[in-house]
């Protein structure tokens, strides 16, 4: 409830409602793209600056390994669930699975905001973990597709290169590095933009996300009720797994919750672009519908509070 009154969430709801009443409200694509670049640069920077303060800890290493492990492993069970309960073709199941192994930057950022509101801050290094979790799932997804006789359309080497140099990965890691280099001192002159303006800009971005997600949900032909159910169940399962693993590894409540949010979130930027290229036979309406139109809103409105609640129970 408390969560739902955060302006960030309310703007998402506003955007979704605007789309549902078929309003012509629309954020120009260039603005949406520009804002998401800003958001990634900002969280990268802030993460780097804070790690520069706190220094590299054992926890950082643990969380990183855990995150990468989850990104590699999660697509496998998801794949079989989608094959079985979802009755998806191997190629579609593999493509969707990759999305759920990877992460959603905005879900993570929104989660951080809510954690901050509730004064259960997550460790700064989780931004680095976010960046590291984006791509491993793509590899697993492609291996699954191959394993089931779907020839990827492109040489593995090129694909590797494309996923590792994906814009969001480069920007997150790059600005994280910049943050490490400049430290708190160097951050002060640019703080008004990258810190002060952050929450407000995030509101505008979620307004856009609400519009986009709801539009997709409306004319998403590929989405069956069963698939919508699976998109929610998988998010919950992955998120819970993430939180439990975090607790098991002795991460504090906020950080465990963040790991859960990452595990429970599904990519809608890096992975779709990679899948469209690597598995063109897979249906984009399907994987974007599930990740962007179902899992994303679910996590923003319901998932995040659950993961946080869970983390508070088990961690400590």
């Amino acid at each position, binding site marked *: 409830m408390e969560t739902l009154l955060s302006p960030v969430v309310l703007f998402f709801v506003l955007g979704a409602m605007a789309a549902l009443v078929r309003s012509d409200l629309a954020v120009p*694509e260039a603005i949406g*793209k520009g804002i998401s670049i800003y958001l990634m640069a900002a969280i990268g920077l802030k993460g780097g600056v804070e790690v520069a303060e706190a220094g590299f800890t054992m926890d950082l290493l643990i969380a990183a390994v855990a995150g990468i492990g989850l990104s590699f492993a999660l697509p496998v069970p998801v794949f079989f669930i989608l094959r079985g309960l979802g009755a998806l073709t191997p190629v579609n199941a593999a493509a969707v699975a990759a999305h759920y192994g990877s992460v959603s930057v905005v879900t993570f950022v929104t989660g951080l905001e809510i954690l901050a509101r509730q004064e259960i801050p997550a460790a700064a290094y989780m931004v680095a973990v976010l960046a590291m979790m984006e791509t491993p799932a793509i590899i697993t997804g492609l291996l699954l597709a191959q394993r089931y006789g779907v020839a990827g*359309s492109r040489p593995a080497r090129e694909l590797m290169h494309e996923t590792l140099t994906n814009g969001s990965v480069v920007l997150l890691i790059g600005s994280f590095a910049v943050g490490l280099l400049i430290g708190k001192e160097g951050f002060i002159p640019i703080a008004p933009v990258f810190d002060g303006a952050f929450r407000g800009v995030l509101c505008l971005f979620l307004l856009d996300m609400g519009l*986009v997600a709801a*539009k997709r949900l409306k004319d998403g032909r590929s989405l069956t009720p069963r698939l919508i159910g699976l998109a929610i169940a998988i998010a919950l399962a992955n998120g819970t797994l993430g939180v439990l693993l975090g607790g098991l590894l002795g991460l504090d409540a906020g950080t465990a919750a963040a790991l859960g949010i990452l595990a429970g979130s599904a990519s809608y930027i890096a992975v*779709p*672009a990679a*899948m469209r*290229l690597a598995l063109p036979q897979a249906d984009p*309406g399907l994987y974007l519908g599930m990740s962007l139109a179902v899992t994303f809103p679910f996590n923003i409105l319901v998932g995040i509070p659950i993961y946080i609640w869970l983390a508070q129970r088990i961690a400590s």
Partner: protein
Amino acid sequence: MSLQGVERTRIEVLLDAPLVPELVRLLDKHGIHGHTVMPTLSGHGASGSWDDDLITSAQHKVTLFSVAEPARAEAFLNDLRPLLDSYGLLVMIGTVNVLRPEKFS
């Protein structure tokens, strides 16, 4: 009505942005070394409606046109056929006259 210039084949393809490099590779393979990519705003077809949101580029559609020497175009299109369905391409083929034919071998 006779037009100035020399006849060439103009191939125009509507496709998802991430697939452009693939298509260019295929053009190169057939010795077609020129192309231009143009933006789109929205559309509707058998697989439903789309609208341009750069939030995810996976379905961000663009059009690519290439003017080529007819024989090369022919060969390219034969290679393209198998990809039409999986890539969800819209292909339009026409004839245009160009003023510097040597540029469009």
